[in-house]
């Protein structure tokens, strides 16, 4: 791309970091000033994101607005950013949530405000960096950068009773996966370097390197663990309910809306295109895990007594859909999967904000402590209802489009997985509506709920943008599907061609082996193909 233009991608990555640095020089006692600085920073980031969207060429599937600077040339490490139709809306989601989380924490967080805001801003830089990195080393740096502020958010501002347990569990669990991934990245780096003579962490160059089958399996497994923990896929999900429940409201929002997408994004961007054969071979068991996650998450969500835990388990279910669609390797499935990442970010993010709003008033998250809230908070009830319906996948709202595409794409290749997954839609209605009923309907039995104030103007401002997108995606998804189409097409093509190429290479090697005297392989193959 043209290198003369303004580096917008770097702009949106580093504006929050600059804001964080600025905060360090401000007096910690001026809470309002600190908040305004953070808010303006996030808004500037949002504006940068809008510019990126505006400059983005929706007809191209290539990496755009790319930036390249040499960093450690001797090791082939570079500062390389790029955006395509797959990452575009994840970036948009992240920059949209930036100002929202600052506003949402306005009243909630009162101690160590400065540090809190710095954490949020650094986290923002880390997340955007992960989505934009086109260099594996750079990616890994951002991946780890984002871990620390999240750890602090849970560990410092979390729910005092169990916050340390949750924070440490979150960090250790994630790190175990990341370290395996780091090992795989290094193996890939050296393997590709030895084979081609060029040692590089450049993702696009590594895309073109055909990893031998056996190696693919192990490396994919390492990447799988790192990302599956992050998604989280069943059975690697148990850190999530704890982290969500103990984190402060905006921590849960960012965690659900963006951080979980790191895992699913990691699959689309790294694990699958780098190791397509292993990925396709893994389709069946990943799909099985995804389907188990869908049903299991829904069932366990159904019997939760804590609203936040319920929403956390619903995430396990929703992200099962994302994984299922992605591993269908069909246009509809993958597009639906990416759209569903955005949808989950919007609706689950919003649900955590909703839970936060009543938590702020009542300091409890237990469903049994509520009941009849509709009566005293009618406007809140409307927002809550719409986001609940969005999460259930009601047609006309965002969730339906994503889920339908995923089910359709999956049904085309694995009908039974789609059928079982579709039954998750029933249970989604059960657990969400049951929760909604117990919280919002009925008579007010607890006198503490009588005097609750309805939404403030600030809270409406926080929720309204999310609501707008929930409706927009439901009614006119083309805005979102069209820009991602070329990139998704390219993704599917890359997986297919590269997979075929690797098989060809393998077969050629096998052939040379057999020609050199060992006829075993061929006769063995003949036996199996006869069946």
């Amino acid at each position, binding site marked *: 791309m043209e290198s003369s233009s303004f580096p917008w991608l770097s702009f949106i990555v580093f504006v929050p970091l600059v804001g964080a640095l600025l905060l360090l020089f401000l007096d910690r006692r001026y809470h309002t000033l600190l908040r305004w600085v953070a808010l303006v920073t996030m808004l500037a980031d949002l504006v940068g994101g809008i510019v990126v969207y505006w400059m983005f060429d929706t007809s191209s599937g290539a990496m755009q607005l790319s930036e390249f600077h040499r960093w450690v040339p001797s090791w082939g490490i570079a500062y390389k950013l790029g955006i395509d139709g797959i990452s575009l809306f994840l970036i948009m989601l992240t920059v949209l949530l930036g100002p929202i989380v600052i506003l949402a924490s306005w009243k909630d967080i009162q101690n160590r405000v400065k540090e809190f805001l710095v954490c949020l801003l650094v986290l923002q830089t880390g997340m955007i960096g992960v989505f934009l990195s086109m260099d594996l080393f750079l990616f890994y740096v951002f991946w780890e950068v984002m871990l620390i502020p999240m750890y602090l958010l849970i560990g410092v501002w979390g729910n005092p009773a169990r916050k340390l347990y949750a924070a440490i*569990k979150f960090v*250790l*669990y994630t790190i175990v996966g990341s370290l395996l991934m780091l090992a795989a990245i290094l193996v890939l780096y050296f393997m590709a370097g030895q084979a081609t003579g060029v040692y590089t962490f450049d993702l696009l160059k590594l895309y073109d390197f055909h990893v031998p089958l056996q190696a693919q399996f192990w490396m994919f497994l390492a990447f799988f663990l790192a990302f599956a923990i992050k998604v989280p896929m069943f*059975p690697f*999900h*148990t*850190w999530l309910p704890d982290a969500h429940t103990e984190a402060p409201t905006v921590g849960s929002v960012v965690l659900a809306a963006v951080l979980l997408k790191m895992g699913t994004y990691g699959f689309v961007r790294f694990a699958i295109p780098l190791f397509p054969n292993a990925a396709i071979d893994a389709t069946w068991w990943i799909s099985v895990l995804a389907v188990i996650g869908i049903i*299991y998450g829904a*069932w*366990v969500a*159904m*019997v*939760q007594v804590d609203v936040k835990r319920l929403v956390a388990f619903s995430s396990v279910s929703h992200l099962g859909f994302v994984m299922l669609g992605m591993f269908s390797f*069909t*246009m*509809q499935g993958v*597009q*639906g999967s990416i759209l569903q990442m955005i949808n989950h970010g919007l609706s689950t993010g919003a649900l955590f904000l909703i839970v936060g709003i009543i938590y702020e008033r009542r300091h409890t998250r237990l469903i049994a402590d509520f009941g*009849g809230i*509709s*009566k005293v908070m009618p406007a809140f009830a409307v927002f809550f209802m719409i986001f609940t*319906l969005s999460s259930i996948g*009601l*047609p*006309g709202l965002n969730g*339906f*489009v994503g889920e*339908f*595409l995923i*089910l*359709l794409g999956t*049904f*085309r290749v694995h*009908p039974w997985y*789609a*059928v079982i997954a*579709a*039954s998750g*839609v*029933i249970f989604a*209605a*059960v657990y969400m*509506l*049951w929760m909604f*009923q117990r919280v*919002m*309907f*009925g*008579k007010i039995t607890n006198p503490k709920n009588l005097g609750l104030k309805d939404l403030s103007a600030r809270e409406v401002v926080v929720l309204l943008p999310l609501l707008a997108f929930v409706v927009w995606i439901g*009614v*006119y*998804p*083309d805005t979102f*599907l*069209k820009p991602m*189409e070329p990139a998704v097409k390219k993704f599917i093509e890359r997986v297919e061609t590269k997979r075929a190429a690797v098989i060809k290479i393998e077969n050629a090697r096998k052939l040379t082996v057999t020609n050199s005297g060992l006829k075993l392989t061929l006769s063995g193959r003949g036996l199996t193909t006869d069946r």
Partner: protein
Amino acid sequence: MSDLVWLIPLFPLIGCALNGLIGRRWPEKIIGWIGSAAVGASFVVAASIFLELLGMDPGSRSVETNIYTWILSGQLNVPIGFLVDPLSVVMMMVVSGVGCIIHVYSIGYMAGEVGFRRYFTYLNLFVFAMLTLVSANNFLLMFVGWEGVGLCSYLLIGYYYEKKSASDAGKKAFVVNRVGDFGFLIGILLIFVTFGTLNFTGVFAAAPDKLTHGGTLVTLITLLLFVGATGKSAQIPLYTWLPDAMEGPTPVSALIHAATMVTAGVYMVSRLSLLYAMAPVSMTVVAVIGGATAVYAATIGITQFDIKRVLAYSTISQLGYMFMACGVGAFASGIFHLMTHAFFKALLFMAAGSVMHALSGELDMRYMGGLRKKLPYTHLTYIFGTLAIAGIFPFAGFFSKDEILFFAFERHWAFWALGAIAAIMTSFYMFRSVFMTFYGESRVTPEAAKHLHESPPIMTIPLVILAILSLVGGLVGIPIFAGLNRFGDFLAPVFAPAQAILHGAHAEAGHHEITLELGLLAVSLAIAIGGFFLARWMYITDPSVPDKVISEYPDLHEMVYHKYWVDEIYDVLFVNSIVRFSRFLWKAFDDAVIDGIVNGVAGAMRGWARGLRRVQTGLVKDYALSILFGVLLVIGYLVLR
């Protein structure tokens, strides 16, 4: 005009948005009339499109209008698009016409309720969704309407959300419908995989090539879609939500749970008549389920005392009739009955609502009686509705029911027998409700008697209009044997492809045996009148009879009165077992096993580290000792090697 079809669902949406978004401070009158006018405007557009269709050549009465592309992904291309043909126009007119009348009635019925604006917002939203359902030109948009009406049903059943039973009923309705929708959704997926399109016209055009008559695929598709229909239209086995849905305000029961939404399944089967015609097995299933439901629900209706529950079971039973009609291939008759049923059942519900209104909310017929003098309009219109549903000549139900029974007989006498048994029970329980409510001794509680009054004109005028429709609504479909069935002729082009498959190439009109038809007609009339006399004998002439019957067969009565304990059985089988299993999963598996392993690994690490820590004592002599041991070990190894 027919390209303006999108206006039809749009008007109620505008009404919903106006009232919902900016109507917070408006007086009730304005909110109510905006809501009613929005639906009325839809009716005007639908009626003008109807007139336009009448002026067109019967073969070309099918117009598609696409507004924009909704979902485009790979081969999948789903438009926001509408289909105008005789079937959809009839449905649009019924929905918006009856809907408008019920909206007006609601202005009076709901006056003074706390959530008046919320009520009209939801009601308009419902009409929007329902009109989308019937006017969509593809499966997915139809599904949007399908789930949309389910949502509004949920919201309106739970309108009195402070009541636990109401919010329970709403949730039950939504979840049971979702079970049906699951089947519908899988059916849609299968259709897309088979045809590569979801547009009705595209699917119908390709059906002869892609599907074989009686093949597994078409049978599977139609059965899956029928699962959706059993949910929405409250058929066996997914009917249990409808009686509970009576927790909603009565006009809601009239509009959603009698006249329109619950007929969506009948509409869907008729819309897809071509596919069903290609699957004889599915046709039989539809007819059997319909006939069985008709009888089954009627038996429960006989024993109920809550006037709305009687009407609810009657609705399930009548819907069964409509499905039986579809199942025997008489799609036009099914739609005909759908229309007449919309008139008289909406009327019955609203008249019952008027009774409730007069009695300060009393629903139990054991606390009514002798109300005919105090509520003259309500009484008269309720009688009209009863005569219509019982099938007394010349009321609307007579013609439509007779048509269904005739075609049922042509298919197989057993279907006719099911229909006839249901008919006599229908006649009986309806006249039973008339006698218990309006005749005999007054059993009204003294407190309720104090406020007893006829409803205001804003409620009685809609009743009168529907009563007139219940009387003359059937005339559009008389009589089959004279070949003058205007209604059937109008719908004929829609069902022509299906009829061609079912009856071969030659048209089936004019082949009726007049003697057979007249004979069946006489029998059904006798049945209806028989029901009347039975009810009169049991509830007017000798009111002690019912108790005697009950004491004669206590177990049978108990079982039927408790709806055969199906709700309880479902609770045990599905609800409780899944909840219990989920609790087990959460506590015993998620917490104990999975998290146990995670924490176990961490714990093992800690234990290991704790053990190692003992070595690090910080005392030099300990380190020296271990160095000594190390050296000895190495030397020993080297020596003994």
